[in-house]
Protein backbone atom coordinates (compact mmCIF):
# COMPACT_ATOMS: atom_id res chain seq x y z
CA UNK A 1 0.00 0.00 0.00
CA UNK A 2 1.23 3.49 -0.81
CA UNK A 3 1.86 5.49 2.34
CA UNK A 4 -0.53 8.38 2.76
CA UNK A 5 1.88 10.70 4.57
CA UNK A 6 5.51 11.61 3.96
CA UNK A 7 8.06 10.29 6.44
CA UNK A 8 9.03 13.81 7.37
CA UNK A 9 5.50 14.46 8.66
CA UNK A 10 5.59 11.22 10.60
CA UNK A 11 8.92 12.20 12.12
CA UNK A 12 7.51 15.54 13.23
CA UNK A 13 4.52 13.67 14.64
CA UNK A 14 6.53 11.30 16.82
CA UNK A 15 8.56 14.26 18.06
CA UNK A 16 5.37 16.13 18.91
CA UNK A 17 6.02 19.03 16.53
CA UNK A 18 2.74 19.08 14.62
CA UNK A 19 -0.19 21.37 15.44
CA UNK A 20 -3.28 19.57 16.83
CA UNK A 21 -5.15 19.42 13.53
CA UNK A 22 -2.17 17.84 11.75
CA UNK A 23 -1.78 15.38 14.63
CA UNK A 24 -5.35 14.24 14.13
CA UNK A 25 -4.69 13.79 10.41
CA UNK A 26 -1.71 11.58 11.15
CA UNK A 27 -3.63 9.53 13.72
CA UNK A 28 -6.43 9.04 11.21
CA UNK A 29 -3.95 7.92 8.57
CA UNK A 30 -2.27 5.51 11.00
CA UNK A 31 -5.54 3.70 11.56
CA UNK A 32 -5.99 3.01 7.85
CA UNK A 33 -2.44 2.53 6.61
CA UNK A 34 -0.58 -0.52 7.99
CA UNK A 35 2.66 0.45 6.24
CA UNK A 36 2.58 3.91 7.78
CA UNK A 37 1.78 2.38 11.17
CA UNK A 38 4.71 -0.01 10.79
CA UNK A 39 7.04 2.87 9.96
CA UNK A 40 5.71 4.80 12.94
CA UNK A 41 6.33 1.81 15.21
CA UNK A 42 9.91 1.63 13.95
CA UNK A 43 10.45 5.30 14.75
CA UNK A 44 8.99 4.85 18.23
CA UNK A 45 11.24 1.86 18.87
CA UNK A 46 14.27 3.88 17.81
CA UNK A 47 13.15 6.69 20.13
CA UNK A 48 12.77 4.27 22.99
CA UNK A 49 16.23 2.90 22.38
CA UNK A 50 17.71 6.39 22.34
CA UNK A 51 15.97 7.22 25.61
CA UNK A 52 17.71 4.25 27.17
CA UNK A 53 21.10 5.65 26.24
CA UNK A 54 20.60 8.71 28.42
CA UNK A 55 23.11 9.04 31.22
CA UNK A 56 23.35 11.02 34.41
CA UNK A 57 26.43 12.95 35.52
CA UNK A 58 28.15 12.06 38.75
CA UNK A 59 26.32 13.40 41.83
CA UNK A 60 29.44 15.41 42.71
CA UNK A 61 29.14 17.26 39.40
CA UNK A 62 25.61 18.41 40.18
CA UNK A 63 26.67 19.34 43.71
CA UNK A 64 29.57 21.40 42.35
CA UNK A 65 27.24 23.28 39.97
CA UNK A 66 24.77 24.05 42.77
CA UNK A 67 27.62 25.13 45.05
CA UNK A 68 28.90 27.48 42.36
CA UNK A 69 25.43 28.92 41.90
CA UNK A 70 25.08 29.58 45.64
CA UNK A 71 28.52 31.20 45.75
CA UNK A 72 27.69 33.30 42.73
CA UNK A 73 24.51 34.54 44.41
CA UNK A 74 26.46 35.36 47.55
CA UNK A 75 29.01 37.38 45.59
CA UNK A 76 26.50 39.33 43.54
Amino acid at each position, binding site marked *: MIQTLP*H*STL*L*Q*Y*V*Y*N*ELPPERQREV*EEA*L*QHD*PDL*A*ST*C*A*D*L*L*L*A*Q*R*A*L*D*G*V*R*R*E*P*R*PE*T*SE*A*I*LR*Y*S*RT*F*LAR*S
Partner: protein
Amino acid sequence: MDLLQPSDSALISLYLAGQESAFAILLERHRSRAYTTILLIVRDEDVADDLLQDTFIKAIHTLKSGRYNEEGKFAPWICRIAHNLAIDSFRRGKRTPHLRLDDNERLANTLTVADDGPDDVLAREETHTRLRALIQELPAAQKEVLLMRHYGDMSFQEIADATGVSINTALGRMRYALINLRKKMTAHSLHHYDSNLTPFDPAPVCIQRIAS
Protein backbone atom coordinates in the same frame (compact mmCIF):
# COMPACT_ATOMS: atom_id res chain seq x y z
CA MET B 1 1.59 21.88 30.69
CA ASP B 2 1.45 19.99 33.97
CA LEU B 3 0.23 22.50 36.54
CA LEU B 4 2.13 20.68 39.27
CA GLN B 5 5.38 21.16 37.38
CA PRO B 6 6.53 24.77 37.17
CA SER B 7 7.65 25.80 33.71
CA ASP B 8 11.28 26.55 32.97
CA SER B 9 10.35 30.22 32.60
CA ALA B 10 8.79 30.27 36.05
CA LEU B 11 11.82 28.55 37.55
CA ILE B 12 14.16 31.07 35.92
CA SER B 13 12.12 33.93 37.33
CA LEU B 14 12.20 32.38 40.79
CA TYR B 15 15.93 31.78 40.49
CA LEU B 16 16.57 35.36 39.50
CA ALA B 17 14.48 36.42 42.49
CA GLY B 18 16.89 34.53 44.73
CA GLN B 19 15.24 31.11 45.02
CA GLU B 20 18.20 28.77 44.77
CA SER B 21 15.93 25.72 44.88
CA ALA B 22 14.46 26.76 41.52
CA PHE B 23 17.86 26.39 39.91
CA ALA B 24 18.24 22.97 41.52
CA ILE B 25 15.01 21.88 39.80
CA LEU B 26 16.21 23.27 36.48
CA LEU B 27 19.47 21.39 36.84
CA GLU B 28 17.75 18.14 37.75
CA ARG B 29 15.33 18.56 34.84
CA HIS B 30 17.93 19.20 32.15
CA ARG B 31 21.26 17.72 33.27
CA SER B 32 20.66 14.26 31.79
CA ARG B 33 19.92 15.52 28.27
CA ALA B 34 22.84 17.94 28.34
CA TYR B 35 25.20 15.36 29.81
CA THR B 36 24.20 12.72 27.26
CA THR B 37 24.69 15.20 24.42
CA ILE B 38 28.17 15.97 25.68
CA LEU B 39 29.10 12.35 26.39
CA LEU B 40 28.08 11.18 22.93
CA ILE B 41 30.38 13.80 21.42
CA VAL B 42 33.45 13.67 23.65
CA ARG B 43 33.15 9.97 24.65
CA ASP B 44 34.89 10.52 27.95
CA GLU B 45 32.98 10.63 31.21
CA ASP B 46 35.50 12.80 33.05
CA VAL B 47 35.52 15.36 30.23
CA ALA B 48 31.72 15.18 30.03
CA ASP B 49 31.36 15.92 33.73
CA ASP B 50 33.75 18.86 33.41
CA LEU B 51 31.92 20.22 30.38
CA LEU B 52 28.54 19.86 32.08
CA GLN B 53 29.87 22.07 34.86
CA ASP B 54 31.12 24.56 32.29
CA THR B 55 27.74 24.49 30.56
CA PHE B 56 25.76 25.33 33.67
CA ILE B 57 28.31 27.83 34.92
CA LYS B 58 27.93 29.65 31.61
CA ALA B 59 24.16 29.50 32.06
CA ILE B 60 24.42 30.88 35.59
CA HIS B 61 26.49 33.83 34.38
CA THR B 62 24.11 34.55 31.52
CA LEU B 63 21.03 34.30 33.72
CA LYS B 64 22.40 36.39 36.57
CA SER B 65 23.75 39.08 34.28
CA GLY B 66 20.31 39.53 32.72
CA ARG B 67 21.43 38.45 29.25
CA TYR B 68 19.15 35.44 28.98
CA ASN B 69 16.57 35.95 26.24
CA GLU B 70 15.26 32.63 25.05
CA GLU B 71 11.58 33.29 25.77
CA GLY B 72 11.08 30.22 27.87
CA LYS B 73 13.02 27.78 25.72
CA PHE B 74 15.58 26.84 28.28
CA ALA B 75 16.08 23.23 27.16
CA PRO B 76 17.30 23.94 23.61
CA TRP B 77 19.39 26.82 24.90
CA ILE B 78 21.23 24.82 27.56
CA CYS B 79 21.75 21.93 25.18
CA ARG B 80 23.12 24.24 22.49
CA ILE B 81 25.69 25.49 25.01
CA ALA B 82 26.51 21.88 25.91
CA HIS B 83 26.75 20.87 22.27
CA ASN B 84 29.03 23.77 21.35
CA LEU B 85 31.35 23.23 24.33
CA ALA B 86 31.55 19.51 23.54
CA ILE B 87 32.35 20.13 19.88
CA ASP B 88 35.03 22.66 20.85
CA SER B 89 36.52 20.23 23.34
CA PHE B 90 36.49 17.33 20.92
CA ARG B 91 38.17 19.42 18.24
CA ARG B 92 40.86 20.54 20.64
CA GLY B 93 41.40 16.87 21.46
CA LYS B 94 43.07 17.55 24.76
CA ARG B 95 42.14 14.10 26.04
CA THR B 96 41.95 10.73 24.37
CA PRO B 97 38.30 9.63 24.13
CA HIS B 98 37.80 6.69 26.40
CA LEU B 99 34.61 5.22 27.78
CA ARG B 100 34.94 3.50 31.12
CA LEU B 101 32.79 0.45 30.62
CA ASP B 102 33.55 -1.30 33.87
CA ASP B 103 32.61 1.36 36.37
CA ASN B 104 30.19 -0.53 38.56
CA GLU B 105 29.74 2.29 40.99
CA ARG B 106 28.73 4.57 38.14
CA LEU B 107 26.38 1.94 36.81
CA ALA B 108 24.70 1.64 40.18
CA ASN B 109 24.07 5.38 40.16
CA THR B 110 22.15 5.14 36.91
CA LEU B 111 19.81 2.35 37.94
CA THR B 112 16.20 3.34 37.75
CA VAL B 113 14.33 0.02 37.59
CA ALA B 114 14.31 -1.39 41.08
CA ASP B 115 12.69 -4.74 40.36
CA ASP B 116 15.11 -5.88 37.66
CA GLY B 117 17.69 -8.47 38.59
CA PRO B 118 21.40 -7.74 38.29
CA ASP B 119 21.64 -9.81 35.09
CA ASP B 120 18.88 -7.74 33.48
CA VAL B 121 20.53 -4.52 34.55
CA LEU B 122 23.91 -5.58 33.22
CA ALA B 123 22.40 -6.80 29.94
CA ARG B 124 20.56 -3.51 29.49
CA GLU B 125 23.65 -1.49 30.26
CA GLU B 126 25.65 -3.58 27.80
CA THR B 127 22.99 -2.93 25.16
CA HIS B 128 23.11 0.79 25.85
CA THR B 129 26.91 0.80 25.66
CA ARG B 130 26.78 -0.91 22.28
CA LEU B 131 24.06 1.46 21.11
CA ARG B 132 26.21 4.43 22.09
CA ALA B 133 28.97 2.91 19.96
CA LEU B 134 26.54 2.56 17.04
CA ILE B 135 25.58 6.22 17.37
CA GLN B 136 29.27 7.09 16.99
CA GLU B 137 29.27 5.24 13.66
CA LEU B 138 26.59 7.48 12.14
CA PRO B 139 27.68 10.05 9.54
CA ALA B 140 28.53 13.32 11.30
CA ALA B 141 25.58 15.28 9.89
CA GLN B 142 23.09 12.60 10.95
CA LYS B 143 24.62 12.27 14.40
CA GLU B 144 24.50 16.04 14.86
CA VAL B 145 20.78 16.24 14.09
CA LEU B 146 20.03 13.20 16.23
CA LEU B 147 21.81 14.68 19.26
CA MET B 148 20.23 18.09 18.81
CA ARG B 149 16.71 16.73 18.38
CA HIS B 150 16.59 13.80 20.73
CA TYR B 151 18.80 14.97 23.58
CA GLY B 152 19.02 18.69 22.90
CA ASP B 153 15.26 19.10 22.62
CA MET B 154 15.67 21.44 19.65
CA SER B 155 12.89 21.51 17.08
CA PHE B 156 13.69 20.54 13.50
CA GLN B 157 13.33 24.18 12.49
CA GLU B 158 15.74 25.26 15.24
CA ILE B 159 18.21 22.60 14.08
CA ALA B 160 17.84 23.78 10.49
CA ASP B 161 18.57 27.36 11.58
CA ALA B 162 21.51 26.34 13.75
CA THR B 163 23.15 24.17 11.09
CA GLY B 164 22.35 26.32 8.05
CA VAL B 165 20.22 23.79 6.18
CA SER B 166 16.55 23.59 5.25
CA ILE B 167 14.08 21.94 7.58
CA ASN B 168 13.57 19.21 5.00
CA THR B 169 17.29 18.46 5.06
CA ALA B 170 17.26 18.31 8.86
CA LEU B 171 14.25 16.00 8.77
CA GLY B 172 15.89 13.83 6.11
CA ARG B 173 19.09 13.52 8.15
CA MET B 174 17.13 12.54 11.23
CA ARG B 175 15.14 10.02 9.27
CA TYR B 176 18.26 8.36 7.89
CA ALA B 177 19.90 8.48 11.32
CA LEU B 178 17.01 6.54 12.83
CA ILE B 179 16.82 4.13 9.89
CA ASN B 180 20.56 3.51 10.08
CA LEU B 181 20.40 2.98 13.82
CA ARG B 182 17.55 0.50 13.52
CA LYS B 183 19.47 -1.41 10.83
CA LYS B 184 22.61 -1.47 12.95
CA MET B 185 20.67 -2.56 16.03
CA THR B 186 19.09 -5.38 14.07
CA ALA B 187 22.44 -6.40 12.63
CA HIS B 188 23.97 -6.42 16.11
CA SER B 189 20.92 -8.13 17.64
CA LEU B 190 20.33 -5.34 20.12
CA HIS B 191 16.86 -6.33 21.25
CA HIS B 192 17.13 -6.11 25.00
CA TYR B 193 15.75 -2.60 25.09
CA ASP B 194 12.41 -3.64 23.61
CA SER B 195 12.04 -7.01 25.27
CA ASN B 196 8.72 -5.94 26.76
CA LEU B 197 7.21 -5.22 23.38
CA THR B 198 5.05 -7.70 21.55
CA PRO B 199 5.60 -8.30 17.83
CA PHE B 200 4.16 -5.50 15.79
CA ASP B 201 0.44 -5.54 15.18
CA PRO B 202 -0.62 -2.81 12.73
CA ALA B 203 -4.01 -2.27 14.33
CA PRO B 204 -4.56 -0.86 16.80
CA VAL B 205 -1.46 1.30 17.09
CA CYS B 206 -0.72 2.67 20.54
CA ILE B 207 1.13 5.96 20.19
CA GLN B 208 3.36 7.11 22.99
CA ARG B 209 5.25 10.08 21.71
CA ILE B 210 7.90 11.79 23.74
CA ALA B 211 6.94 14.96 25.52
CA SER B 212 8.00 18.14 23.84
